[in-house]
């Protein structure tokens, strides 16, 4: 039987369920940790009706992120498994996604996974040629003695670094 969507309890339940949908590229983070899910609302079937359809509002991280289509599909599949057979997913571009929306729990999960989380103070790309962001802390040995190898890493959201103390390479989830 399909879940009947009625009230705020359902919206809370949906947030919890989306917290179980992980990003395909960084599987330790959920789409909620990443700040991709912007809103969840219930669109009533008709005014005054008890029933409605959940509408999930998401926003892309990077324009070219190839994971977005998969994220939409994963959200739909997970909610279907939990009994929500009819779900609308709307994509909005504004306001533009920023790493400021990443949850604290998400940042800790990233570091434990071996990816340096975005700096607490937003230090986005500056325009001056050869300018570099502040030192990034190595997620393995916590040294600040690190060097950027490339500002474009294995996915659009990451930069590639090397630790000069423990000599390990690591990904940095760059501020955006």
């Amino acid at each position, binding site marked *: 039987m399909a879940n009947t969507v009625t009230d705020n309890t359902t919206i809370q339940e949906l947030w919890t369920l989306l917290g179980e949908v992980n990003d395909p590229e960084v599987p330790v983070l959920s789409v909620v940790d990443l700040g991709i899910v912007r809103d969840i609302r219930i669109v009533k079937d008709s005014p005054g009706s008890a029933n409605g359809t959940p509408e999930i509002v998401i926003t892309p991280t990077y324009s*070219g992120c190839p994971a977005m289509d998969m994220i939409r599909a994963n959200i739909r599949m997970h909610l279907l498994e939990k009994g929500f057979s009819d779900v609308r997913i709307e994509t909005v*571009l504004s306001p533009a996604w920023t790493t400021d929306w990443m949850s604290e729990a998400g940042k800790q999960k990233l570091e434990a996974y071996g990816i340096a989380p975005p700096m607490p103070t937003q230090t986005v*790309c500056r325009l001056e040629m050869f300018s570099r962001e502040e030192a990034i802390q190595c997620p393995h040995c916590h040294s600040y003695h690190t060097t950027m190898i490339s500002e474009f890493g294995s996915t659009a959201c990451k930069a590639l670094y090397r630790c000069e103390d423990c000599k390990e390479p690591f990904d940095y989830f760059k501020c955006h």
Partner: protein
Amino acid sequence: MSDQSIIDYILHLGDNALVLGHRNSEWTGHGPILEQDIALSNIALDLIGQARYYYQYASRCINAADGASRPFPGHEALTEDVLAYHRDAWDFRNCLLVEQSNGHWGKTVLRQFFFSAWQFELYGALRHSRDSQLAAIAAKSLKEVTYHLRWSGEWVIRLGDGTEESHTRMEEALGDLWKYTGELFVPADYEKPLALSGVAVDLATIRPAWELKVGEVLEAAGLERKEGEWMQKGGKQGKHTEALGYLLAEMQFLQRAYPGCEW
């Protein structure tokens, strides 16, 4: 302002992004070193992502247009894929700069630098467009373009101010590409009324900042820009160089041979 002029303008912005994104993707697997191969592939992805926003928006506008004046009448429910794969060279509204062949690495990064310096200023202004969807796309993409601009500018300086060989090659690339930069600031007929109504960017307002940035980087690279050179234009009206046809032949082949094919 007619429906047609805004559709042409959205296609112009989308075609710029798709064509340069495709050109850059030709380097994937062939970059000089792994990290730079990945960097240029990331830039290609960003641009193709931008192109999708524009084509999704353009297809909504086209599908909502009246029957008689509707462009591409053969397609009942037009999609972003139809716009990317089923238009021919004369339908494309991109600037000539972005379709130029990759040549060597130096030419590719110089082409990217000229374009990113322009796109950076364009999006900075387009964020305030009276068209809320164009404003949203511009604001979203501007952060990505900032990385493209710094990355490509650094490469221009590194190679221009590098060895005798790299300097000579950058001079050669400048000779090949400079003539296509003038078009970036010549408004097309469909653009003029949109600029007046605050939807499109008035290109004259962003030119000084572009000149300044390009001047700074070329000077740091030890490269001399050509003054008073003939400027080739026509891409924004669908009059392209030979290069675009070859690019489309490769990019569109699968969808032309097997329309609607998915995997």
